[in-house]
């Protein structure tokens, strides 16, 4: 199978991607696109990026052999790509370092970002502090309530956090608010989009900065096993960690790519965020992709226990990979994710983000169906400290002092 290359810049497959955004922002997109094109070739930029990834973000992240899970599940060998061990505790830092350096390069002094669970907001606030830039984060009011710890972390790092009260008060509304803020102050402000979504060149840029995950995992597995994995599994909200986990394997058709979406209360219920399985093609947040929407094209309010996966769309490259059959997308419910949260904590001693536990839950189903000589790499996109309270609440455990 061939890699799905954009047919024109920013177009994935036959139709996904593109640029659908107010004219006010188009000049900025042009500037960003030019900077991105130039900086990819710029040795100084690459050096600065590399230096921050290694000496600040703590890369490369471990490729950890999950011996206990492997033995317990009794099938394929399981390796965990430990993005949860990065500085700030998630894969988000990879992309944020890249975009913030770009922002500095084009003379911006202020960073804005949307965040769902808060991981992208924390990463953005972190890099803003490091580079001495102003930072404002937009987060749905429901998410500021369920992720209070991350709100506090962002404020500690010097960012201003806006609780967005419009719409359904979750991630998509935070994106709306950030786009509006960007349109108001695009002269001095750079919007760091946190996932592989938005108008071209954002999906391409985010993939570029996140592809470090698969570049490393490929080398690391080669060193350990001298071969490619049989399957790569990663959770998908907008899909930044998944596209980063898949990137270097897209040209290796023998490697199965599996994106795990948040099915919430179930793919067949209206309380779900399983976009590829339940959504349809539409145009929203700057891109043509798959969205959960009604027959009139009004975007649905979506649901997941995980604030980070609670998004009605998916990155355009994922829509194309799904369309062309290069990657499979499956749904995992809240119950299954919570079960996996406890499972990986007890078997491997790792408290992983509830987002990542969607991928772990699928690995629990997949590994036993595979042979012992096969290998799965599962990306742990983030750590789960932020989710402990939610999980306790879900289980009916009172941990308030």
């Amino acid at each position, binding site marked *: 199978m061939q890699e799905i290359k954009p047919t024109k810049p920013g177009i994935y497959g036959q139709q996904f991607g593109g640029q659908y955004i*107010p*004219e*006010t922002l188009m000049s900025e997109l042009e500037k960003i696109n030019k900077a991105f094109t130039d900086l990819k070739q710029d040795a100084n930029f690459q050096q600065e990026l590399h230096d921050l990834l290694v000496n600040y973000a703590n890369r490369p992240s471990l490729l950890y052999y999950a011996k206990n899970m492997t033995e317990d599940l009794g099938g394929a060998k399981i390796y965990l790509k430990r993005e949860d061990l990065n500085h700030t505790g998630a894969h988000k830092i990879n992309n944020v370092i890249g975009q913030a350096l770009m922002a500095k390069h084009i003379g911006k002094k202020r960073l804005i970002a949307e965040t769902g669970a808060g991981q992208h907001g924390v990463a953005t606030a972190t890099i803003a502090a490091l580079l001495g830039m102003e930072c404002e984060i937009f987060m749905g009011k429901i998410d500021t309530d369920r992720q209070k710890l991350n709100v506090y972390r962002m404020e500690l790092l010097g960012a201003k956090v806006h609780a967005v009260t419009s719409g359904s008060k979750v991630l998509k509304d935070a994106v709306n608010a950030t786009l509006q803020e960007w349109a*108001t102050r695009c002269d001095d402000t750079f919007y760091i989009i946190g996932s592989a979504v938005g108008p071209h060149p954002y999906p391409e840029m985010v993939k570029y900065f996140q592809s470090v995950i698969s570049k490393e995992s490929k080398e690391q597995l080669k060193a350990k096993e001298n071969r490619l994995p049989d399957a790569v599994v990663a959770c998908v909200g907008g899909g930044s960690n998944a596209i980063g986990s898949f990137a270097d394997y897209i040209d290796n058709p023998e490697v199965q790519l599996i994106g795990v979406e948040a099915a919430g209360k179930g793919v067949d219920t209206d309380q779900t965020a399983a976009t590829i399985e339940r959504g349809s093609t*539409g145009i929203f947040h700057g891109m043509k992709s798959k*969205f959960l929407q009604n027959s009139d*094209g009004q*975007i649905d309010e979506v649901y997941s226990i995980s604030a980070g996966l609670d998004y009605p769309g998916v990155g355009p490259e994922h829509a194309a990979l799904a369309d062309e059959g290069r990657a499979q997308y499956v749904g995992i419910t809240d119950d299954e994710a919570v079960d996996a949260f406890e499972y990986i904590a007890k078997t491997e001693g790792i408290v992983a983000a509830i987002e990542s536990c969607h991928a772990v839950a699928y690995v629990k189903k997949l590994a036993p169906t595979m042979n012992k000589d096969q290998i799965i790499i599962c990306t742990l996109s983030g750590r789960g400290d932020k989710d402990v309270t939610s999980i306790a609440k879900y289980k009916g455990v009172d941990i308030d002092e």
Partner: protein
Amino acid sequence: MSNLTKIFENKKVFIPFVVANDPDFDTTVENIITLAKNGADIVELGIPFSDPVADGPVIQSADLRAFKAGVTTERVFEIISEVRKHSDIPLVLLSYLNIPFKYGYEKFLKRCADLNISGIVIPDLPLESRDEIAPIANDYDIDIIPLITPTSGHRIKEIAEAASGFIYVVSSLGITGQRDNFSEHLADLITNIRKYTDVPTAIGFGIHTPKQATSMAKIADGVIVGSAFVDIIGKQGRNSETELANLAKEIATAIK
């Protein structure tokens, strides 16, 4: 020459905006007729959208009221169909692109043509994506109204050259809603646009007083007033007629 362009011949054009089905079907029909009778040259009708990223809180609230009253794309067309029984006021729709995309561009534009809709403003359709819908619109003699903003810069030439109907000139950065300060460079922006096209210009975003309308009409061919009317409907609901009529008359008089 497009039907919309003709309206701009020999006069300054006044374009008020309301949201379809806000607060309900009948009131929208009455409001459009009221505006038509009180000096509107064109009425711009917004199709409510769940996530109107180019719009401020006033229009966002109107969209929510319209949803509460059960708006669908079909219902918007029914409202226009009802208006057409009483008035042939030129109409322009405002719609985010996903609405016609899901309805089907061909079907949507045919429906518009059948209801004598002259143009569509699509806030999330930049020049780069215009081909998505413009060729089909062209087949039905419907103008896709482009937007030019204070940040358009070198993009102005290409946007202006592709324009038909009129050009929606955005007064300032940000989102829709009343404001008191506009880009200082608006007159230059319009001079710049006129280097490349004879298609008329109408300024919108933030204009809410007759005095502002007067100064905008001095530099452009028309003015678009949205949030000020939507705000009246938000406050007066079904009893907006008198206030809408008064504001429309004042602005229509102010720009002549």
